[in-house]
């Protein structure tokens, strides 16, 4: 087991190298960079002194070097102007737009992003499982039709619209401040119980908004998977033993139907980060999504590159976790290689 995890972690290293290269290449695809754009602007305004300063910065961040070299310096496998100083050495880069190191820009938002995503995944699973099981076992009943209808509405409603409506209602009924992740008075205060409570209250609306589409899709998939399993022979075998329907359902078909959902954990993470950008903009949430968007727009390459790489790492870890969970749940995967064929 330990050997396996170590092996998996080692195979992540080349994967991450490939991903980082692709990210870097794609970010650099548009002509120019943040600083050259700025130089253009300054030149048009005729500010020679400022240009000299920016040229100096270009040199400092090695933006005038060839593409491969820039990439290598960014990763930290090639000496830049300041020697080996890249991602590997723990230097996550400099954000030109915010005039701050990248880690200072994202440290707050990353934590909130992770918290929000975790809450959303929990919400999706907690809501969709009971409904999915209900719909599958009572196929074509009124309840099934009702949940199907609600599910399609959830899939079809634009998230930001739902967000605005919910925000208005929350403000009107529960007196919650519009937007943000906490009431304005707590923003620059140290953490306290009241602040935590405010954060949790503000998490509710975004969680529901970001989670509805996922929940609806998950209900449909669980229902379909479970319906497939319910007609399998081993279910009849269990029934022939005299098991009660509910007990039987949880022990046999549900466990079989779980696999696709566990293998999905790794895939959920990137979609939750990139999928919630619009919602975050609309609801004014300080998550990493809007930061990524603006960084991409202004070609703030080190910031954008770091965020994308961070999501990639999360995804790879998610995949590892789902593979381990699958092995724990399914003996065919755990013992597969030893089985007689």
């Amino acid at each position, binding site marked *: 087991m330990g050997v396996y995890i170590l092996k998996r972690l080692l195979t992540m290293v080349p994967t991450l190298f490939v991903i980082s290269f692709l990210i870097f290449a794609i970010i650099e695809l548009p002509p120019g960079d943040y600083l050259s754009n700025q130089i253009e602007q300054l030149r048009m305004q005729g500010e020679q002194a400022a240009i000299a300063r920016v040229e100096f910065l270009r040199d400092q961040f090695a933006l005038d070097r060839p593409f491969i070299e820039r990439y290598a310096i960014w990763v930290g496998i090639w000496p830049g102007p300041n020697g080996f100083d890249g991602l590997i050495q723990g230097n996550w880069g400099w954000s030109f737009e915010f005039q701050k190191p990248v880690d200072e820009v994202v440290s707050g938002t990353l934590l909130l992003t992770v918290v929000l995503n975790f809450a959303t995944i929990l919400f999706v699973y907690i809501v969709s499982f009971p409904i999915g099981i209900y719909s599958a076992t009572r196929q074509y009943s009124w309840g099934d039709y009702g949940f199907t209808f609600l599910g399609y509405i959830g899939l079809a409603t634009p998230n930001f619209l739902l967000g605005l409506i919910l925000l208005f209602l929350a403000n009107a009924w529960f007196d919650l401040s519009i937007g943000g992740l906490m009431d304005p008075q707590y923003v620059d205060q140290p953490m306290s119980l009241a602040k935590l409570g405010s954060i949790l209250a503000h998490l509710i609306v975004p969680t529901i908004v970001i989670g509805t589409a996922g929940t609806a899709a998950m209900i449909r998939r669980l229902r379909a998977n479970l319906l497939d399993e319910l007609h399998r022979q081993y279910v009849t075998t269990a029934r022939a033993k*005299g098991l009660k329907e509910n007990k039987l359902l949880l022990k046999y078909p549900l466990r079989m139907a779980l696999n696709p959902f566990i293998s999905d954990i790794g895939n959920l993470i990137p979609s939750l980060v990139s999928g919630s950008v619009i919602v975050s903009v609309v609801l004014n949430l300080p998550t990493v999504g809007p930061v990524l968007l603006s960084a991409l727009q202004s070609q703030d390459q080190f910031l954008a590159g770091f965020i994308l790489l961070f999501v990639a790492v999360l995804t790879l870890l998610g995949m590892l976790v789902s593979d381990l969970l699958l092995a724990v749940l399914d003996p*065919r995967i755990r013992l597969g290689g030893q089985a*007689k064929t």
Partner: protein
Amino acid sequence: MSVVSIRDLCIDYHSDSGTTRAVNGVSFDVPNARTIALVGESGCGKSTISQAVMGLLPPAAKVASGQILFSDPAGEAAPVDIASLERDGPLMRDIRGNRIAMIFQEPMTSLSPLHTIGDQIGEAARLHQDMSREEAREATRDMLRLVQFPDPDRALDTYPFELSGGLRQRAMIAMALICRPALLVADEPTTALDVTIQAEILKLIRDVQEELQMSVLLITHDFGVVANMADAVVVVYQGRVMEAGPVETVFRAPEHPYLKALLDAVPTFHMDANERLQPIRPIAPKIGGLLSKERAPAEAAGARAGEPLLVVDNISKTFALRQGGSLFGKSQGRVLKALDGVSLTIQRGECLGLVGESGSGKTTTANAVMRALDLDGGSVRFDAGRGLEDIYALRGANLMDYRRRVQMIFQDPFSSLNPRMSLNEILMEPLIIHNVGTSAERADWVRELMALVGLDQRYLRRYPHSLSGGQRQRIGIARALALRPDLVVCDEPVSALDVSVQAQILNLLQDLKAELGLTYLFVSHNLAVVDYLSERVAVMCKGRLVEMGPTSTVVNDPQHPYTQALLAAVPEASLDHPLDFDHLSQTRASQPSAWPEPYRLDADTQPVLVEVSPDHFVCAPGLASPSLKEAV
């Protein structure tokens, strides 16, 4: 006294398109500690009856009238009418799995792959007899011992996919018997198993029946199983009982025409050479027209029957099993010898039967002949009118020519026809691929083919799903014949079909061979079928050819221990040749290293065929002369 007595049972299936009566006024008794066989073709309602007895009818099915009276021989409780109980109510659940238990056809899919054998078997005991986890485990261990598991203690914690099919079915039986039921319902319990495993499982069911004094309701379509297992027989046709009575009467003096027809449709050994099977619904193939005008290509080249058409010479093939092993541990990759020095010759105009159990390499051999896989060694040579040529060296036009001359009929008529193509398109496709004729000629030829397999040409617009299994298999045959091949490889063409349809297809194959001068390589696990159709037979085991010779010689005078075991395990549909359960191979007959000298084969022994009588070859390395050994 009867454990179950069924009275005037009627069961309806309700669907959007109306009501269908699946079971219509069925009455019979299952006496204490006896075996009743419920026999019929697929779709006759026999499984519906068994489901009704178990209270496992699907929601769409309703018992319209009648009773299923269950009187438990163990208690003094008054008889219960199962038909009137709520299917998932506590009363029914108390009987189900406890007093009446069931085993199913497919041992692979009948067990949950995610739970250990011990867990699944012990579950019923914990449910019905209030056993604790430990007690149930103990009871499970006893049960596994009763069904003769090789290592009961270890088996408790194994998963179904780690076991062979036969062991899985043993586990199923242990699961059904753990509460010592009064009645065991066995729904085609051995249909999915190899013939030697089938004999072992049948013996096991008889043994435990004696041990536990329970009744068995055996649902089967196989009269061989019936003759060896049942005390009484109930024959069902379209939801009605056609005939019922003790097994003696049913086999020796069948009265109802349907039963007589069913019995006549089963191929048995001891049939006369020219005796024909009598299908229930015979078909009339029309041979003539275009077919008679255009002579078979082989005859045009001046070839005569009796000459070697295909020579398989010492071919071998190994498959690497999945490398890497388990997720969390190391294990070395294993290799499977699918073919080990197999040599055989098919004469023009004959039918060579290729027999063996699953995993014997018979299908791999067929694929090698089709050039559907790459060989590790040896050669396959074919006479396409230019003398014997190595088919693995053929390229371009010559390879296309070979493909045209060798065609295949597949096992599963359901999955071997593309459901999105009409029959016309299916039969036309080979002609288009090989660019035969103009489109008008092709259309004529397709109609001819339909007549050839006895199908109305109005069916040409239909799609495969609207045909029955037998009709589909006839389309598969017509497709194989579309290019007028020299050699037809039949891979288990009747094993998915009912007895009556099987007879129909076998007769069709026989007629076509005679009329069109075809040559068959007939792959089957069913010795009786091979006996009916083939002039010569080759027996395979674990990738080796163990015996080959004229069919009558091999069947009547088998030399090799494996062939003997195989023949001894075939249940015959006749009371005069019962299975000898006491002398069923104690040793594993399919283990080459366990065969006695001179037949013993170790992993690296070269299999050598020795001619024991004219044309009759047996694999016996111990008998081979030293010079021959060197030569090989």
